C-alpha cells in the first residue's frame, strides 16, 4: 500500500473517532475548546508514531507470548517522555486542561489496536505512516468536537470571539453532558448519511433532486 493510502486510511476511511468509535475518554473529556482538542490529538499522534516505529523495529525480537506487556512498557516509556516535555515546554493552561489524560494515553485502545494490527507485522516506515494517519484522524475528530463545543458554549472558535453576547452561549455544551450530546448528534448525522448515501450520490449532494 502506498504511503498516501496509509495516511488516507487513518484520516478518512477508518477514522478512529467517526468510523471506529474508539478512544472516547480523551475525546469527550478535553474537547472544551478547539485548541485543547488539537493539543491532545497531536500529543497522542506523536506517541503513536514513536511507539509504532519502535515496535516495528523490535517486532522480530519480541516473543509473541508477552508482546502485550512489551507494548505497554514501550508506550508507557514514550508517554513519560511526552509528560516531561509537556511540563517543561507546553503553555501551563493547556497542560492543566489535558491533565491526567496525557498519562492515560498508555491505556488508549486506539494506540494498542494499531500496534497489534499493523506495527507488529509491517516495516518501520509504513508503520509510522499508519500511526501518523490514525493520529491525524484522531486529531481531526477531537478538533471537530472542540470547534462545535467551543462555538456553542463560549461563542468563539480557536479563541477568536464570534458571538460576544453571553446570553447566546449555551453553557452546558462546555460541561460533561454537552460532550455526550455533541458526539451523539455527529454520529447520528454520519448514520443518516450512510443510510442515504446512494441518494446523495445520485443527486450530487443536492437535496432538491
Amino acid at each position: 500500500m502506498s504511503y498516501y493510502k496509509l495516511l488516507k486510511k487513518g484520516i478518512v476511511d477508518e477514522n478512529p473517532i467517526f468510523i471506529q468509535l474508539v478512544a472516547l475518554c480523551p475525546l469527550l473529556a478535553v474537547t472544551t475548546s478547539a485548541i485543547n482538542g488539537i493539543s491532545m490529538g497531536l500529543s497522542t499522534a506523536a506517541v503513536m508514531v514513536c511507539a509504532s516505529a519502535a515496535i516495528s523495529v523490535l517486532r522480530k525480537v519480541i516473543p509473541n507470548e508477552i508482546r502485550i506487556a512489551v507494548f505497554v512498557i514501550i508506550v508507557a516509556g514514550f508517554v513519560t517522555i511526552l509528560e516531561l516535555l509537556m511540563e517543561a515546554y507546553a503553555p501551563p493552561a493547556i497542560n492543566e486542561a489535558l491533565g491526567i489524560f496525557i498519562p492515560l494515553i498508555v491505556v488508549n485502545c486506539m494506540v494498542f489496536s494499531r500496534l497489534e494490527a499493523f506495527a507488529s507485522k509491517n516495516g518501520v516506515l509504513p508503520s509510522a505512516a499508519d500511526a501518523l494517519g490514525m493520529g491525524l484522524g484522531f486529531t481531526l475528530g477531537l478538533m471537530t468536537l472542540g470547534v462545535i463545543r467551543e462555538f456553542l458554549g463560549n461563542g468563539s472558535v480557536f479563541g477568536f470571539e464570534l458571538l460576544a453576547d453571553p446570553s447566546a452561549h449555551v453553557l452546558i455544551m462546555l460541561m460533561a453532558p454537552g460532550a455526550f450530546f455533541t458526539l451523539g448528534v455527529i454520529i447520528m448525522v454520519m448514520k443518516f448519511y450512510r443510510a442515504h448515501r446512494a441518494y446523495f450520490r445520485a443527486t450530487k449532494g443536492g437535496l432538491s433532486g
Partner: protein
Amino acid sequence: MNPFMVLIGAALVNNYVLTQFLGMCPFFGVSNKTETALGMGFAVLFVMTLASAITHPFYHYILVPLNAGYLQTVVFILIIASLVQFVEMFLKKSFRALYASLGIFLPMITTNCAIFGVTLINVKDPHSFTEAVVNSAGAGIGFLLALLLLAGVREKSDNNPDIPEIFKGFPLALFSAGLMSIALMGFQGLIKF
C-alpha cells in the same frame, strides 16, 4: 475528611464516568445487557479498590523517597497488569463461582482507563491511604451505578420500534448518558469540600 463523605463524593458528586469521562470504552461497550453490566461493574469495583490500595503506598513509600515520581506511569500500569493477572489466577483456583461470572471481564480491565486514572488521581491529590482506598471504592460504585443504569435504559430502548433507526444504538446511548450526566449535576453542592 470523613470517609463516608469521600465515598459519596466519588460515587455521586464527582462521578468518574459521567462527569470526568473515565472508563468510556466499557461504559458504552458492555452496556447492552444488565447482566453483563453487573459483572463488569463488580469486576471494576474490586480491581479498582485493590489497585489503589497497592499503588498509593508504593508511590509514597518507594517512588517518592527514591525521587522517582516521574516513573509513576510505567510503574502503575505494570502493577495493575500484574494485579489483574494475579486476581484472575486466584479466582480461578479458589472461587470458581465468582470466576465464572467475573472471569471474562478481567482481561479487559488491564487497559481500563478508569482504574489507571483513579490511581493517578489518588496520588495527585493529597489523599491519605484510607481516603485513597475509600475514594477508589466510591469511584467503583459510581462506575457500577452508571453502567447499570445505562444498560437498563439501553435494554428497553433498543427493542422499542417507535425509535427511528438512525437514533438506535450508539447515538441513543450517548444521549441517555448526557441526560444521566445532567441528572447527576443535581448532586453538586451536596458536599462542601
